[in-house]
């Protein structure tokens, strides 16, 4: 962390901040005198509590209320109680593996699309991030530069990512041109169902893999060097060193990466929505887009149904997040 930079940034902002803060010192001193330390603690926590309460906690309760009420109205008082109707609608299927047999076929299409996406995308990310981290950790010249190369797409906005790749993947785009040059048959990337899936996975991996590689790289660099030196003194073969030292010691980090990637993949929306719009047909329609369409966009608008669906997604995410927190605690202790 560069202190010089922090100081510069600090110097620019410090003067006005201090002036503003000083101007409210007198009333706050009075407040402190009247209410003591407890009053000051309340004062420091209040802005965050208000924001959290208004925009996270209250909505969460409304979410539950929505999921058991019907109609198109947003005000709770205008909505009628329907019990578990939304959940029934979402969960009723003759065969859960066949969306067309479900009462809400779109939901189950989104569920299975998301499941397939999550499995393929997270696996790909884990493998590519691991490979990249291993290579970035090896003795290569200009390591900082290479780290930056893989990290670059992470900062790009999903809309930019989606548009870049829409441009490259179009029928007469760069990728097809390269494929023709290599004597491969060009593909209608965003128009054929299977290829659109490949594109969605590929683009989201492209956009995020650098982040996970960095976490793994930090994990690799934390492995004590003398372990490797001891192994070398013992004449251990490199492959064995990898499987018996590196992998076991990196395992906690790898698990954290996988769970983090899972949490993000379940909520996938932005870049795929810009890239394919969920199409062709519904082949890249994922859960968040389903919630968005049902909740806001489509003529089928049904806030209660969207709430019920998001609560179910939330359940999955809570399990994953608890897993992540547990894992991080375990990793930091290990």
């Amino acid at each position, binding site marked *: *962390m560069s202190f010089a*930079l*922090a100081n510069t940034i600090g110097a620019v902002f410090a003067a006005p*901040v201090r002036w503003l803060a000083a101007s409210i010192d007198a009333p706050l001193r009075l407040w*402190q005198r009247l209410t003591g*330390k*407890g009053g*000051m*603690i309340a004062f420091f*926590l209040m*802005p*965050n509590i208000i*924001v959290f309460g*208004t*925009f996270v906690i209250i909505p969460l309760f409304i979410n539950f209320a929505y999921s058991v009420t019907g109609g198109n109205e947003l005000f709770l008082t205008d909505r009628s109680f329907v019990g578990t109707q939304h959940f029934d609608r979402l969960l009723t299927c003759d065969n859960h593996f066949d969306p067309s047999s479900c009462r809400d076929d779109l939901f189950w299409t989104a569920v299975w699309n998301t499941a397939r996406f999550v499995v393929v995308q997270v696996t790909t990310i884990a493998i590519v991030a691991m490979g990249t981290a*291993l*290579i970035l950790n*090896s*003795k*290569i010249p200009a390591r900082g530069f*290479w780290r*930056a*190369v893989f*990290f*670059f797409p992470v*900062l790009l*906005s*999903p*809309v*930019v990512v*989606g548009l*870049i790749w829409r*441009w490259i993947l179009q029928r*007469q785009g*760069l990728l097809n*041109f390269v494929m023709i040059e290599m004597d491969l048959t060009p593909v209608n990337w965003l128009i054929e169902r299977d290829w659109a899936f490949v594109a969605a996975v590929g683009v989201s991996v*492209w956009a995020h893999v650098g982040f996970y590689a960095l*976490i793994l790289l930090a994990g*690799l660099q934390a492995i004590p*060097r003398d372990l*490797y030196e001891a192994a070398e003194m013992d004449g251990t073969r490199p*492959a064995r060193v990898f499987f018996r030292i590196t992998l076991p010691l990196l395992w906690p980090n790898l698990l*954290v990466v996988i769970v983090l990637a899972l*949490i993000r993949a379940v*909520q996938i*929306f*932005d870049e795929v929505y*810009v890239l394919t719009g969920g199409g062709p047909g519904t082949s890249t329609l994922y859960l968040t887009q389903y*919630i*968005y369409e049902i909740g*806001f966009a489509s003529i089928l608008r049904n*806030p209660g149904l969207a709430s019920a669906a*998001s*609560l179910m*997604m939330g359940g999955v*995410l*809570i399990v994953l*997040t608890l897993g992540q*927190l547990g894992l*991080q605690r375990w990793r930091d202790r290990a």
Partner: protein
Amino acid sequence: MSRIATFLTRRRGDGGRWHWTDVVTWLWLGAGLILMFGPAIWLVLSSFKTPAQLAEFPPTILPYVSETVAVTLNGETRNLPLYDVILSDGSADQLAELRRVGTVAQMIDPADPETVIKVPITDRRPVREVGFAWDNYLKPLEAFNFGQYLYNSVFVTVTATIITLITNSMAAFALSKYEFRGRNAVLLIIVATLMIPLSVNLVPLYSVISTLGLQNTLWGVILPTVATPTGVFLLRQYMLTIPDELIEAARMDKASEWQIYYRIVLPLTAPALAVLAIFSVVWRWNDFLWPLIVLSRKELFTLQVGLNTFAGELNVQWHYILAMTVATMIPVVIVFVFLQRFITTGIAGTGLK
């Protein structure tokens, strides 16, 4: 670094001959370079191409503009496009196109503008030089409210970041430097909010926003994003490393608790605040789904929403879209170029994204 290094880059023998792992390493890095930077570079190059050139297949790497030549015809000077032409007798020449009728072009020699030569369009190729279609950038500024979108994005980003820094640092201060009953409860609630990402609360959050009358306002975009527990955690973690003796010294120095916050703790948290500020800027600049829901009036769109809407229109004008995409990307690229090291170490240290 580690010995995996050797595993992957060891060169067999002493002669410096390449082992297969060296090949894998450099293939991986090379592919990474092309894959990670290539698309962005291709985007930038494409953004300078004219619509006609964008429609070309196979595409050229660099943007070109057609050369024109000034020809005086009947006392009137006109700029005409210049072509390499194979004449019917098999000889090559450079002619300017006067007009085109079906598959035949009427062309003239700039040196002798009076004689019209008819050439089948298959026998000619435009004379081009590398050049940039700046219009792609200039036109959207006036025609598509680009300036307005830019202003909205900057406003949202800056305001949200400032509010985030203030509220999060205040809470982090209380949670790191005071012992009080219920502290763990507050911490637990904040952890819990980690588990409820925006995408789970979309519908009810929208109803809260509209109850507050904030739908279709930039504040409706800003306020919910301020509730990121990540910032509170990051700052609290950092503030825990500030020695309590400093705060006690300030108390002995008759500082009020508020002064301790803004004169002692805040300046000392500057590095962590900088990290949070940078992340917040990138997050808010890139936000898409929430602004998409809150904003339905065009003049309130942020860049991301505006760009997406524009790209979704029936008659897709790629030359403008590409240029606007580049413009949207520029701030993030600047952040990347100057603060890359800062950010990557920040991520490695905090697991923040």
